[in-house]
């Protein structure tokens, strides 16, 4: 077990490093020296002379190679950096330094810490909603498979999954929040200050994420349950005189839930990495919205790199956790 975790952690670290290199290279090459040109134009009111540009390029490191720039960036994460120049101003960036955000002028890590609670709150609430709803609906549909209720569920999940998510989010915001005022304010209210207010503000985004995703979970769970209900051990349970509900929710669900949890682990990691539409439409100040804003001109390359790095770490960690969880869920799987 420990050996497995150590090996998986090492390969996970490798994946994260490669991702960061890839993203850094893409943006460094893609943007060229445009950040320096932008900074120069800003500092000299549009009258940037070659002398000034050269000195700004030197300050920002554009006169050095890609590898050296990546080295500086990567070293900063562990050791911190001094003398980081953004728009001609000098900043001090303690470890873990992911650079300075052009938008806010703060260190990226400082902003990241500020944005994360909103995204985590959104993801945890939305994901638990669709997991619980989906599994319960799916189990019941499997219980009454072939009935009109079952067909309604399968049909509605097709309809829901064929509507683009942003449309559902936008329409529910327009109707439920703006017009009917059922959920007058949406957004993130710090959960440590007033949890009730957090729940009230988050309810609509949670519902939107929960309801749009629960249908696919319900269908997946239903499929797994129908398969499990045909297993011999379900017949054994019935032959023992076990009550129908106990057969369904103890014997069948226990086996059917394993693949559902696997998918859920990966979906949840994606949610944690930021839900751009939900955060944008419901004005939640989270990672997704932050990353999207960073992509407007001028591109806030440090913010973009940071969001990509964090989401790659999340996905990799989620994969690892799912694998470890598997060995607890299924006694036949032993990881060594």
């Amino acid at each position, binding site marked *: 077990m420990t050996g497995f975790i150590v090996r998986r952690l090492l390969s996970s670290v490798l994946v994260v490093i490669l991702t960061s290199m890839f993203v850094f290279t893409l943006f460094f090459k893609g943007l060229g020296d445009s950040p320096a040109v932008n900074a120069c134009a800003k500092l000299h009111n549009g009258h940037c002379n070659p002398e000034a540009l050269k000195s700004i390029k030197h300050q920002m490191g554009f006169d050095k190679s890609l590898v050296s720039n990546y080295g500086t960036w990567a070293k900063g994460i562990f050791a911190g950096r001094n003398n980081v120049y953004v728009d001609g101003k000098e900043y001090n960036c303690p470890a873990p330094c992911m650079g300075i955000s052009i938008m806010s002028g703060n260190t990226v890590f400082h902003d990241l810490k500020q944005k994360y609670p909103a995204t985590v709150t959104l993801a945890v609430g939305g994901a638990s909603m669709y997991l619980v709803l989906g599994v319960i609906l799916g189990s019941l549909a499997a219980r009454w498979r072939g009935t009109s209720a079952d067909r309604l569920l399968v049909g509605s999940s097709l309809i829901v999954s064929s509507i683009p998510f942003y449309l559902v989010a936008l329409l529910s915001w327009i109707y439920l929040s703006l017009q009917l005022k059922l959920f007058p304010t949406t957004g993130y209210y710090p959960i440590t200050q007033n949890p009730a207010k957090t729940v009230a503000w988050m309810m609509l985004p949670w519902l939107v994420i929960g309801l749009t995703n629960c249908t696919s979970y319900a269908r997946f769970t239903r499929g797994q349950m129908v398969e499990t209900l045909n*297993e*011999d*051990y379900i*017949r*054994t*349970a*019935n*032959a*023992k*005189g*076990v*009550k*129908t509900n106990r057969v369904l929710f103890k*014997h069948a669900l*226990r*086996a059917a839930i394993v693949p559902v949890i696997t998918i859920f682990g990966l979906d949840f990691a994606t949610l944690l990495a930021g839900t751009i539409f939900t955060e944008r439409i419901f004005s939640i100040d989270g990672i997704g919205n932050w990353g999207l804003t960073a992509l407007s001109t001028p591109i806030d390359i440090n913010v973009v790199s940071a969001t990509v790095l964090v989401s790659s770490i999340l996905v990799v960690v989620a994969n690892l956790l799912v694998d470890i969880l598997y060995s607890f*869920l*299924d*006694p*036949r799987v032993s990881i060594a």
Partner: protein
Amino acid sequence: MSTDISERPDGMAAPANPDEPFLVVENLTVKFPTHDGLVQAVTDLSYTVERGKTLGIVGESGSGKSVSSMAVLGLHDPKHTRLSGSIRVDGTEVIGAPEDRMRKIRGNSIAMIFQDALTALHPFYTIGDQISEGYRIHHRVSKGEAKKRAIEMLDRVGIPQPNRRVDDYPHQFSGGMRQRAMIAMALVNDPQLLIADEPTTALDVTVQAQILDLLQDLQREFNSAVIIITHDLGVVAELADTTMVMYAGRAVEYGATREILTHPEMPYTWGLLGSIPEVAGDADVRLIPIPGNPPSLLNPPTGCSFHPRCPHVDKVPGDLCRTTLPDLLPGDRGENHVKRCHLANPGEIYTEEVLPEIAPDLIDPETGEMIAELAAVDPDEI
């Protein structure tokens, strides 16, 4: 004779009759409506089992063996099954009984052992949990007591170190041990009727013998009625007091096991006997397979359902085999041995034509006649 195959008037079905055998199945018909049509899984089946006795049900896959015994436990989904006839367990009618009442019977007075214990046991729960669950459903006891009972049962079926093994998962058991655990699970509530559905099919031969011995011991100990479903006539010879041969959802031969094995009167039973390899026998003796495939139950053959595969059709005058379903009637061997066949002289055909081919050992090489002492071999020694 432990079984009674005579028809009972319906009036006797309702009150519990102390003289009635523990299990009485009368005119049981099971049909499954499917998209392709109505599947006639079991047709007009009647049999009885008394306490302390064993009935063997023999037949090919799809002959209705398992379907009929699942009906005894009411395990068919009522929405997708049409049941008719009567099944009385200790005088109580099972067909049409409400789920609540069936649940009290299942696993309690009737228990079932399934074929492949690896798939029949839940992979995610420990052996102990699964055994004690069965106990706690029918007894108001604490988890600790139920676990103690599970350990006791594992010990009884011969699992070494039951204290430790009780917390193992099914995949940590060997095939034979899993089947033992399955038996322990079935016996945890001291059932009066045990239905064993091919209990040894998935096991090694040596383990098979152990499991059969165990079943026999337990039956003697608990005096329960046992139905053993198998396609192996050896198992039947070993365990069963009476034997019913099924083909295409119907009983085709029914009587005392010794009778059926030594004086079979139905060509299908001859075919089954001819398909058994004999360990001590001559290596040159050919196995004689039954030609063809089991019939479709969607579209059963007209007349006798065995006629398309029967090598003796031309011995029956006219088109009788193809047009008329033979009744289950006594043959030459008396009231207690019934068969479903038009052949007028099955005993003669068996000794003169079938036996020399399937068991040449039993024919005297000099006179060319059957050695009567050998042919009437004791079923315990087969």
